[in-house]
């Protein structure tokens, strides 16, 4: 994406129009903090503030989850391609209503700085939107973006993988920032907080840390859109995205399934085919 300024301007103008015409009550987008030059989610309610909206390669947060806070309100949202998939997933679960929503989709997403998820991302255009900004990326251009990507962990042997993840999760403080940043994690109560039954101990021990990430991982199956928000949120720099990313690639490889591509789509584990793969089953 060549020109962030023009995209930012486009977004601002759309937002301004939507607010002015009272099509929406607010626009969720990215802007700068008051005391820092860091990108932060902003919530524009007045047309005159719409100029604060910007888009650039540091817009790392996934804004989709905020939609859950505004059920029943008319909201516009700036959506990167991955966010647009997350929106589809919410629509498919009836968590939000399409008619309440105006989606300003980003096309030709160049990826977010420091977000490793973008290195393997092959959905670079918004999959659902009312307005699109930016230049649509062609299949060839997308392939060029992800060329050379390889899952390093996949190349390790079993013992190395176990050691790698043990080393990672040793650091986990179970602050659950990964969970909170993730659009998928919208349960009324997370299993980590459940007392009945108690899935995990409260003390931060590697065995339970590891278990937490596995459990989170399987909940990602068929739902993760590989936005990388979890990894960006982790204060300990843990590879918290690895399991989710594996679930994405496995779903695609084995079941030809990509989550969030269609608002009518069922999640991977809520459907089956009679001749589904039995990969990994005993003979």
């Amino acid at each position, binding site marked *: 994406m060549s020109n962030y300024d023009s995209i930012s301007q486009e977004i601002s103008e759309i937002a301004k129009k939507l607010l002015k015409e009272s099509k929406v009550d607010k626009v969720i987008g990215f802007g700068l903090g008051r005391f820092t030059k860091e990108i932060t989610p902003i919530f524009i309610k007045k047309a005159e503030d719409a100029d604060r909206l910007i888009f650039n390669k540091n817009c790392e947060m996934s804004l989709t989850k905020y939609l859950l806070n505004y059920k029943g309100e008319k909201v516009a949202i700036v959506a990167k391609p991955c966010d647009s998939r997350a929106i589809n997933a919410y629509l498919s679960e009836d968590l939000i209503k399409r008619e309440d929503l105006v989606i300003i989709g980003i096309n030709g997403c160049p990826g977010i700085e420091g977000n490793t998820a973008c290195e393997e991302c092959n959905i670079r255009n918004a999959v659902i939107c009312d307005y699109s900004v930016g230049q649509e990326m062609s299949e060839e251009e997308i392939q060029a973006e992800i060329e050379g990507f390889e899952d390093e962990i996949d190349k390790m042997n079993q013992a190395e993988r176990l050691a790698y993840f043990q080393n990672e999760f040793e650091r986990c403080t179970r602050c659950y920032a990964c969970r909170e940043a993730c659009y998928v994690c919208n349960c009324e109560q997370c299993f980590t907080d459940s007392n009945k039954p108690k899935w995990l101990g409260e003390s931060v021990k590697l065995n339970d840390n590891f278990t937490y990430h596995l459990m989170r991982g399987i909940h990602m199956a068929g739902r993760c859109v590989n936005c990388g928000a979890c990894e960006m949120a982790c204060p300990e720099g843990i590879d918290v995205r690895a*399991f989710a990313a594996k679930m994405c690639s496995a779903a695609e490889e084995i079941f030809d399934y990509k989550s969030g591509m269609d608002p009518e789509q069922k999640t991977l584990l809520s459907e089956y085919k009679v001749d589904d793969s039995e990969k990994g089953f005993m003979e």
Partner: protein
Amino acid sequence: MADSNEFEPKIAAFLCTWCSYAAADLAGSSRTQYPPNIRVMRVPCTGRLDPFLIIKAFNMGADGILISGCHPGDCHYLDGNLYARRRFVMLNELMQYAGVEEERLNFTWCSASEGKRFAGVVKKAVDRVKTVGPWMGFDGQGFSKEEGDLINEQL
């Protein structure tokens, strides 16, 4: 497991009540012998199995798991096993990716008439788990005093 020095794994087995649990019963009524290393938990359908339960089995120290349901198409609840199949395939991918040996993860189908096969499946699963030794937990620290001592020695 004191009477032998050989590693005797303890395997968490989840069997659906209609087919595989029946197969296990049939192995019994036809006195087909198999290793005593599995601990069976009966569930109505493999569709009942939240992958969490399987992850949790490893968290608690099971050396491996064995899951068996009705063959595809035979489900008493029409298609529970077909949903389960997807869950297991994905869970299997995840667990192996995380570094859990594939030998610990045993998924299969056994019909109510496959008593002999069930015994064979148990033997196979036990043999598979034996080849990779005791499960030391996700923290690699082991669960028993002996395993702990072993690790301390290595340190």
